[in-house]
């Protein structure tokens, strides 16, 4: 993959149901898992997190990690959107996990901010 092409340039709207199940690859072009869910803040309409299901890549059972949406980079692969995440096996292994569907706990800043920090995405407090 041409690394200079990795800047976000999707120029389209993505349907939530299209995103669900999308494969995510890392910069080494390894398949790291797929997007399981999108978590949206209703007041601002902002997608805060994508829940990434990383099973096989880690060689563990199914593990879910919450990744800030803005940590992903998008490319175009034919007519499909390509999802890229700068994540080695080690980075995923240490990433903040999500257990079950208790997504509410990801809302407060004291939980969300460290996750943004882990993925090097600036935490912006929305009004």
């Amino acid at each position: 993959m041409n690394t200079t092409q990795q800047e976000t340039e999707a120029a389209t709207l993505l349907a939530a149901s299209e995103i669900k199940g999308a494969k995510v690859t890392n910069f080494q072009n390894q398949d790291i898992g797929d997007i399981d869910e999108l978590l949206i803040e209703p007041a601002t309409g902002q997608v805060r997190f994508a829940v990434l299901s990383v099973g096989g890549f880690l060689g563990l059972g199914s593990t879910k990690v919450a990744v800030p949406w803005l940590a992903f980079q998008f490319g175009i692969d034919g007519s499909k959107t390509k999802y890229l995440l700068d994540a080695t096996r080690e980075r995923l292994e240490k990433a903040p996990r999500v257990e079950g569907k208790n997504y509410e706990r990801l809302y407060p800043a004291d939980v969300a901010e460290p996750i943004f920090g882990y993925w090097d995405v600036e935490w912006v407090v929305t009004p």
Partner: protein
Amino acid sequence: MNLILKTLVVSLLLVLVGGAGSVALAAKNPATHYPALVSASEIKGTHVKNPQGQDLGAIDEVLIDPDTGQVRFAILDVGGFLGVGSTRVAVPLGAFQITQEGNKSKWVLDADKEKLKNAPKVEGKNYQRLYTTTVAEPIFVYWKVTWIEPESTSAATPASTP
């Protein structure tokens, strides 16, 4: 003296920033109070009512601008309410009042039959056309939601976008 001046400048800046913040807040939906995250799959299938309590239909899809992570539109499937076949309209997310009801989200849209009948429709799954300002902005205007040009795309997207 210098310090006092600096303090003055800083506090003035803070006032300005605070002012800008409240403007941004006003542009959003003031009635939306839902202090939690809602999953996309929970939103899909959620029924929407108007303030008169009539069931307008269900949300069929959520459309996201990948560059900003902002939900631009919810696709509302309004079949039965209009008494016609299944009709889908694109509604800016900011047009909905989303509140909490129990442990679920409650979606209200200020729309009667007439408003929905005249609303911009969506055919098939060609959501790409809703990305362009020329298509999106009139829909925002129709639903009286302030159109804000996406920051990253206005700079990055060449004028040749279809």
